[in-house]
């Protein structure tokens, strides 16, 4: 019979890379991401008895990762109630100042992976994770809602705002790189 650590290694550890990528998306810095992943996996192991076998282990790990991150932010006293306001500002900015891209696919290929990840890292906390889970992990809106603890409708609007804001960030990079002018 397998020990709990053997079962955990077999079921959860294969998702280490995905969880690490999510951690990079959340906190941006590699060292901190590794720290976060370690903490999240320890917590996951401690709660492994509560994991329903046969369900989506990766989604379960993402949820633990997010909670671990929030605990850290609380601990650092930099969390709080700023997120809704941030999102509102971003939403307004997105509506007011969105640039038209004549050929999105061609333009976006000009950015390096680092620039794309950096731009994502500049978005508000929960937008980063929502966009990562939706676009990179391609989870369903329902799964993302469960992980992030919000309604499906919020996931839709959050993902859309996040993508608009990401586009704005990339537009400003593109302007700096001389790829586009300032036309709207």
């Amino acid at each position: 019979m397998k020990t709990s650590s053997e079962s955990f290694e077999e079921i959860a550890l294969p998702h280490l890379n995905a969880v690490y990528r999510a951690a990079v998306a959340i906190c941006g810095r590699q060292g901190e991401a590794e720290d976060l992943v370690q903490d999240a996996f320890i917590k996951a192991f401690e709660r492994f008895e509560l994991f329903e076998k046969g369900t989506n282990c990766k989604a379960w790990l993402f949820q633990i990762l997010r909670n671990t991150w929030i605990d850290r932010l609380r601990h650092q006293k930099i969390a709080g109630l700023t997120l809704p306001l941030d999102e509102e500002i971003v939403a307004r900015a997105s509506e007011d100042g969105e640039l038209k891209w004549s050929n999105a696919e061609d333009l976006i290929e000009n950015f390096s992976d680092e620039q794309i990840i950096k731009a994502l890292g500049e978005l508000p906390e929960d937008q980063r994770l929502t966009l990562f889970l939706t676009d990179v992990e391609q989870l369903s809106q329902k799964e993302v809602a469960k992980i992030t603890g919000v309604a499906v409708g919020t996931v839709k609007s959050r993902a859309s705002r996040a993508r608009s804001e990401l586009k704005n960030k990339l537009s400003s990079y593109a302007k700096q790189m001389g790829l586009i002018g300032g036309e709207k």
Partner: protein
Amino acid sequence: MNHLTNEQLEDVMQGGDADITHLNQCQDCRDSLAEKQAIAARLRSAFMSVKADAGLANRVRYQINQNNETTETAKSIQHTWTTRLHHKLWPALAAAAAIFIVLVPLSMYVLTPSTATAAQAELVMIHQQNLGSHREFYNDADPEKLAEYFKDKLGFTPAFPCTGQGMAIRGCCVAHFKGQIVGSYVVDTPKGVISIIVVTDTPRQMGMTHMPEKTGYEQSLWKSSYAQCNMVTVRLGDYSYCAIGEISKISHEYLRYLLSRLLPNIQQ
């Protein structure tokens, strides 16, 4: 004509229900959708290159096994207590459990072949914690203040690194090694961050192998590599000074160089 809302476009991206008729007729909505899809695809490809370091899996495995051993030990003790109490053997069992509690953690280091690995894994763990953003360091430009800090925390003052040549002490802290409090420095060097951990175990007890090279003061050195980290240790007096850095940045030779720079202070 009403365009699709952002939420409706999100549904389309997820392959859900949407007003396909409108989408077929409206170039603006098709452009918006194409743009969203391009961003999503590029984001996905950007993260394809992000991979966890091989050492991370090892560290997670190690921590899980440590946790597991603690849990299994606790469960075992609890089980023994509850079953044998019915036989009124609890005084004998209490003594046995006490011995068990003492012997199990000790056996990790004394009785099993994984002694060395466990010690080195703990050293690596301390180094990793030193690199983490949550480690709180004590730092002061005045070396006497640093000495006071260690004296207060450890009961003795270990030697301090000789800085310069692009090396600087980021800070000092205390950590736990084999359940005991030990001192640690973090040194920023031009090649990367190095932790120096001061322990009472000898290099041999920590499973390190003797190096043919010596320090400038003819002190013997021991080395090892574990979980993507290189380590070099020098034994001075009752203490081992173990320098650790990541394999990708810090060689054994560089660690030896750093420890040699420590020696003038150590010999004071």
